[in-house]
């Protein structure tokens, strides 16, 4: 009991100190479009990742079809279907693609989900007004890890 309580306390301590060690968008190292290490140190949650595929700032299925998410309806045809993504790519490659696909695919239409600079006429979300203040990436570091964890479940083989 006591041991467990101590463990929990240490874990939450770790979580806070890990939060401080989150790799910032401007500090990410890409090697050939790949990000080797986790952006947070906390494993991604595939269920949370599946939600990001559907909604909000992720909305991956606006452009990609995923058979497993068929119940959500209306998948896009802009990018390749993501079925079997984990057979084609490693976790580190997927992390790179989701964080900033332009590093891997030159000039791709896919948005950069973990980048905060280099935009032209950056707006304040979908208001059409100019952006003020500090720029948030489209997805947080943990959301990137969650999406990558979800993609890692997409195996055909």
């Amino acid at each position, binding site marked *: 009991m006591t041991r467990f309580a101590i463990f929990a306390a240490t874990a939450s301590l770790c979580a806070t100190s890990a939060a401080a060690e989150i790799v910032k968008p401007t500090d990410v190292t890409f090697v050939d479009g790949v990000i080797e290490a986790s952006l947070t140190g906390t494993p991604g949650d595939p269920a949370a990742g599946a939600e990001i595929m559907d909604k909000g700032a992720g909305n991956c299925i606006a452009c990609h079809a995923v058979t497993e998410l068929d119940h959500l309806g209306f998948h*896009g045809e802009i990018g*390749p279907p993501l079925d079997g993504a984990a057979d084609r790519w490693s976790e580190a490659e997927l992390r790179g693609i989701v964080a900033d696909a332009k590093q891997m*695919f030159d000039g791709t239409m896919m948005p950069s989900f973990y980048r905060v600079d280099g935009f*032209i006429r950056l707006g304040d979300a*979908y208001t059409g007004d100019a952006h003020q203040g500090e720029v948030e990436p489209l997805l947080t570091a943990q959301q990137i890890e969650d999406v990558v964890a979800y993609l890692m479940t997409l195996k055909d083989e």
Partner: protein
Amino acid sequence: MTRQTRVRAGAAIGVVAGVLAVAAHAGPDDDDLVINGEIEIVTETAAPEHIEHVGTIYSGWRFRSDETQAFQVDDFDNPSMIWVEQAEEVWNTAEGAAGKSCASCHDGSDSMAGVRAVYPKWNEDAGEVRTLEMQINDCRENRMQAETWKYTGGEMVNMVALLSAVSRGIPVNVAIDGPAQSTWEMGKDIYYTRYGQLELSCANCHEDNYGNMIRADHLSQGQINGFPTYRLKNTKLNAVHARFKGCVRDTRAETFAPGSPEFVALELYVASRGNGLSVEGPSVRN
């Protein structure tokens, strides 16, 4: 695997799977549009020479469902026509200190047949490219001494709808050379600029991906021969610049203002991508 082969493998998988998935939507359909049994609308033709990456141009009508398309076949079914009739009344009504109506200078509204097709257009006296809206406001201000209309406001969009209606069937033919050229170039730059946090250009969606679905939307070429458009989504007439604004906003960008030099230039450029399609507005879209 090298980076190059990885990219190609991914793309090839996309193509194969894509063929299966998209069969239901891919590309424009094969329907013909004849309005009121008499006005034949060119909804497909060879792209004008100044357009680089597209061989054939299509009206947005060809990307809409049969149900949406049907609204345009007969004016009795086209919800826009209520506002066209209102504009017809305004056309004939004197307003402003000069005591004139549009008709005082121009006769019937049908005397405007063909005008929509060549706008935006260089105006020599003003030394600028003018949209139809700018010209209408110039007439109101200087010939009628009446209040100008808001650029995308109701009166304006109604009047543009009337002027489009009387030009239906006439091919779009905006001039892009001579003094209009620098404006056209500016519009082209805007068309290919990837704005906003999503870094998307008009070309990303409407040149590279027309015919594809983006979530629930079937992407067209983003042609403007059908403007103003009545949209089932907001049940009103929508001006060209309002549509531009919506599309730029959706890239998470700071938009340009309706009537701004940027949108005037973009309108000239986008109109020129449709040279050869019939004027079709006021059209119906979803």
